[in-house]
């Protein structure tokens, strides 16, 4: 039985975050190549985890009055590092020559990359 507003708010945030993470996992299975999968793995997954952590913070803040600075640091760190990691992975994939999917119609980086990056090597 739900007792008060604290559990309702926390349960709402945590359930929403879990559903978003699950949807992003479906995207990781079904999307065709590494560049499109990067969207599912970085953006929506980060949103789901941030929602879950905010729900946890609100639960302990309202029910026990315990404000966890470590949880705030975790939220800040995940929010800061997830886009950086996704960018590094996509860059290493492109430089290794991982192909785009056949459905994609244009590769705007290709001309610049072959003129500037490869001539330096």
């Amino acid at each position, binding site marked *: *039985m*739900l*007792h008060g507003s604290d*559990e309702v708010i*926390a*349960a709402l945030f*945590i*359930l929403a*975050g*879990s*559903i978003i*993470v*699950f949807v*992003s*996992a*479906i995207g*990781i*299975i079904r999307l065709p190549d*590494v560049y499109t*999968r*990067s969207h599912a*793995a970085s953006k929506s*997954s*980060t949103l*789901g*985890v941030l929602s*879950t*952590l905010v*729900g*946890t913070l609100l*639960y*302990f803040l309202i029910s026990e009055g*315990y404000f*966890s600075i*470590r*949880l705030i*640091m*975790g939220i800040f*760190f*995940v929010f800061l*590092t*997830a886009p*950086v*990691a*996704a960018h*590094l*992975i*996509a*860059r*290493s*994939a492109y*430089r*290794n020559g*991982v192909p785009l999917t056949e459905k994609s119609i244009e590769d705007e980086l290709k001309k610049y990359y072959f003129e500037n990056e490869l001539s330096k090597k």
Partner: protein
Amino acid sequence: MTFEIIMIVSLCLLTLSILANIYRVVKGPSSADRIQALDAIGINLIASIAVFSVLLHTHAFFDLILLIGILSFVGTVAFARFTERGMVIKQKDEG
């Protein structure tokens, strides 16, 4: 009672998404797919630990959230640099 059921449902959803990421780690055609799925597994573990600490009413696991976040980021950066250049830390002499 309803609150515990919601927490367990959330844990089940997070477990299913970790299994989906493990499928991508095993099957992924290139190594970038595998690194990406491992990074997503780390992020899903953070969410699972948060839900688990709410379910158990304890603060003890909050250090673990920060630790897994930092270690997952460092591992992802090291793997990405290794597959991109063949080395993790550049030596000074090679210019």
